[in-house]
């Protein structure tokens, strides 16, 4: 029941905030978002699940109820958490709360609407990670789009309308493709429900029957492609990524934080749940192709980031790169690979959130994000810059920060993958990303933060207010905590991952 309470509280809270006056909407929203935040921590502490939600593991906080009967089929409300979704729920609540705090400075008009939409989005995100029935899940999946569109469209930058409509339509097309693919799959299973665990297990037991017009393998492949394409847009995987930089650059800082921090994880989470759990055999069959997608995302994304002058664009493209690691880890089908991919979702959520917030804080004071417009900021805002440097090194995968843990797990798992032929080569190529990322982040930092102070926009630059810096600091601490003790999450993740089909728990080898 805890999940339902969380979602309900957030949803009602969003309505309340929507009605609240602009003056203290921010504080109100912060207070409201603290509830799911605490709730998330409580759930984390009480988490007693084990195994994979889709493969018949023990679910935590499971809840199910009748909703719609559709002829023979029944669409039910079914929620529950396992080791994969639990961390993501925590991530969502944490980031939303911090994002709201970070919004106090930049959002100076129509606050109540803004915070209401943010909370609405949080409710949707929680639902996405908690839902275990396809239709319910899909409701939340699509519900996230609406607030995103408005948040970018209303409070965004100069090209916000273009960016908003782009992300809106692009991702919606993707969802439609995915929907048809998945539904086609389910209707050829001898089951009369869209309950994800049931579907996954039916698929795992090869109970798929081919319709007249095609074969089982063709159907599986077709569905896999449709779903992969659908989720690839959300992740985003090159070449479906072009909406991301536009959206990020135009979106206001808090929205960028949530977009990079959580919304992208929807895509990877869905990939993990649908493509890589339900259709593991297809995924392994085309492992090399997928790995190529992953590697291209990593290197190409990093190269693009290298060419940018806008700090936000840099971080945006680097997200593409980081998501490539996730795909690589997933396709490895080893505990460390898939678990590392999941851990990377969390880690990247925190770090990219940190980066976007830091850039936002700088923007609030300098009113520019162009690398060329400023230098020597470290002289004027030492604390912010210090944290920003910390985040940047986290992004570069500095040990004892979560980024390193995640990337290391992914690389280790991928290197040892038994299903991906030539895995070491793929891994080595992908790993070169860590050099490029160091390259563009160091270049950007050198130009903006160091050197003699210079600012082309004439604004008075001083230290940032506390409520801007505090969230950054909190995130930095989280990043370090997860880097020092990844088992805070990685333990439950491994437990859930090990039950996935075709995942090699042991690293094999002659010992």
């Amino acid at each position, binding site marked *: 029941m805890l999940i339902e309470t969380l979602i309900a509280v957030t949803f009602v809270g969003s309505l309340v905030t929507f009605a609240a006056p602009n003056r203290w909407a921010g504080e109100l929203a912060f207070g409201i978002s603290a509830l799911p935040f605490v709730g998330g921590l409580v759930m984390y502490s009480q988490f007693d699940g084990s195994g994979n939600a889709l493969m018949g593991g023990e679910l935590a906080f499971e809840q199910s109820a009748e909703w719609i009967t559709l002829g023979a089929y029944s669409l039910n409300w079914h929620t529950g958490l396992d080791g994969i979704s639990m961390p993501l729920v925590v991530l969502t609540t944490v980031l939303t709360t911090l994002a709201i705090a970070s919004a106090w400075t930049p959002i100076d008009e129509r606050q109540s609407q803004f915070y209401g939409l943010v909370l609405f989005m949080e409710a949707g995100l929680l639902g996405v990670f908690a839902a275990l029935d396809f239709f319910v899940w899909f409701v939340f999946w699509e519900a996230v789009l609406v607030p995103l569109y408005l948040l970018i469209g209303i409070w965004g930058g100069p090209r916000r309308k273009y960016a908003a409509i782009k992300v*809106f339509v692009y991702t919606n097309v993707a969802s439609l493709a995915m929907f048809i693919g998945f539904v086609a799959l389910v209707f050829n299973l001898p089951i009369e429900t869209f309950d994800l665990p049931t579907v996954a297990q039916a698929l795992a037991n090869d109970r798929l029957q081919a319709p007249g017009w095609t074969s089982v393998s063709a159907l599986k492949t077709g569905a896999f492609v449709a779903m992969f394409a659908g989720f690839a847009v959300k992740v985003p995987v090159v070449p479906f990524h072009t909406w991301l930089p536009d959206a990020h650059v135009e979106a206001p800082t808090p929205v960028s934080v949530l977009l990079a921090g959580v919304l992208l994880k929807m895509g990877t989470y869905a990939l993990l749940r649908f493509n890589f759990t339900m259709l593991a055999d297809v995924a392994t069959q085309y492992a090399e192709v997928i790995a190529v997608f992953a590697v291209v995302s990593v290197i190409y994304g990093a190269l693009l980031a290298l060419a940018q002058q806008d700090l936000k664009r840099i971080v945006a493209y680097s997200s593409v790169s980081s998501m490539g690691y996730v795909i690589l880890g997933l396709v490895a089908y080893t505990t460390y690979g898939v678990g590392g991919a999941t851990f990377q979702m969390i880690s990247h959520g925190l770090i990219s959130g940190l980066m976007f917030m830091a850039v936002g804080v700088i923007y609030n004071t300098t009113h520019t994000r162009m690398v060329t417009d400023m230098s020597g900021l470290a002289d004027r805002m030492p604390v912010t810059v210090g944290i920003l440097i910390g985040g940047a090194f986290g992004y570069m995968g500095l040990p004892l920060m979560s980024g390193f843990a995640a990337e290391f797990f992914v690389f280790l798992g991928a290197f040892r993958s038994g299903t991906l032929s030539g895995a070491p080569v793929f891994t080595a190529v992908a790993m070169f990303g860590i050099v490029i990322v160091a390259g563009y982040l160091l270049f950007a930092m050198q130009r903006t933060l160091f050197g003699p102070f210079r600012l082309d926009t004439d604004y008075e630059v001083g230290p940032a207010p506390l409520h801007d810096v505090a969230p950054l600091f909190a995130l930095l601490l989280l990043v370090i905590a997860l880097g020092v003790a990844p088992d805070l999450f990685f333990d439950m993740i491994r437990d859930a991952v090990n039950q996935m089909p075709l995942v090699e728990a042991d690293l094999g080898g002659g010992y």
Partner: protein
Amino acid sequence: MALYELPEWAGLAPAVILAATSLVLLLVDSIDPDSSNRPALAGTATTGALLSLAVTGWFLVAGVGDPDGRGVISLFGGQLVVDQTSLLFTFIFASVTTMVTVASYDYLRGHAYQAEYYSLIMLAATGMATMASSASLATVFVSFELLSLSSYALVAYLKDNRGSVEAGLKYFLIGALSSAVLVYGISLVYAVTGSLRLAAVAEAAAGTELVGVLGLGVLMVLGGFAFKTASVPFHFWAPEAYEGAPAPISGFLSSASKAAGFVVAFRVFTVAFPVEQFLDLGVDWVFAVQILAVVTMTLGNFAAATQNEVKRMLAYSSVGHAGYALIGLAAISGPNSDLVLGAGMMHLLVYGFMNTGAFLFIALAEYWDVGRTFEDYYGLASRAPVASLAMTVFMLSLAGLPPFGGFASKYILFMGAVNAGFWWLAAVGAVNSALSLYYYSRVVKALWIEEPSDDVAKVGITEQPIGIYAAIVFAAVVTVALLPAFGPVTETAVSAAGALLP
């Protein structure tokens, strides 16, 4: 509420109530021709509509027409039947009528001949109700004409408004042509089968050698219905009629009248022209419907994408939605087609609310005369937040986004298509719905995102018309509530569809 005490013909109560209301209004009109006692007239009409709505709801709950419940009622030698399909659609008609009459209370301020207006609406509603339960081509045609004639008049109601008149003319001319096509088709069907009762037609058609004539007739009948449902190529009247007509009437026609066309189509084509039988004969009307569906949704959505006037955009989008609903009939040749047919019905139900609501918002805009184009709507949200919120709900629901009823109905429709093996129909629908998202979001953008230009901002919103507001808010609430409460709808619709199918 023991129903068996009532005579069988009481099953027609909804239609009868509507008819009676219209007669009462006519009476008022004849007594006091230039009565402009708006509360009384609107009140009467609304009462009638609400009453029939209540009765319909009661019947639905009580299980009238449910084969497993109180059973299907067949009246007048099988000319009329009362089953779940008829009741479900009567429910749509009654609720749309209610919203329209309530909204018209404000909209008609300062217009003459209001009694006629309301009685015409009630007559049209009566026609729809009878269409929903007509089980013979004769009753189909008569009720069809009853609806058509009154709606011609309604569209042209604003006599001094060129747009309204032009709309009426076009609607009438195309309508006359289409009804001629329809009746000629009926005559051909009669020629082959020698019967007009749907069931009998199906029997008699078996093993006829006049396949060509029969096929000709079937397709012409299809054409007649395509006119009512505003499906390509019989849709040409729709954009103009919806644009020119008074906004409440546009809503009324685009939701209720369209649904009426569909219910007739569903019943006639499932009962009188059963798929398998006619396939064996070589009359593949499903193929024709598939063509219509694809062409209709594509043309509707693509034409809507680049409109400048919100009302006309809605008109085209309504054509597009006709295409979606046609999927219900187009995928009928597949396995468990009750699902997809029922999905079509569900979509029409949800559409009845969200689309009427959208047009009523247009009515509100016309009432304030803020203008018709997207530019005129810029920044309206800051001046009329509630109405804008409702409009946003309608737009997103029409686009098929959660948490609104339109999401459920649209995706269940696609689901049904895939389930019936017509994944390509669903794919075409998907492409279109993605496009529709673009133009629906233009409205949301105009309302919430865009900054109003000065001359737009000047248009003062002086008063808040209570009637229109009530109708809009009601529609919005229902649109939202329909997602969580979709269970009953699906059950009724699917079992209704199951009952229709042989």
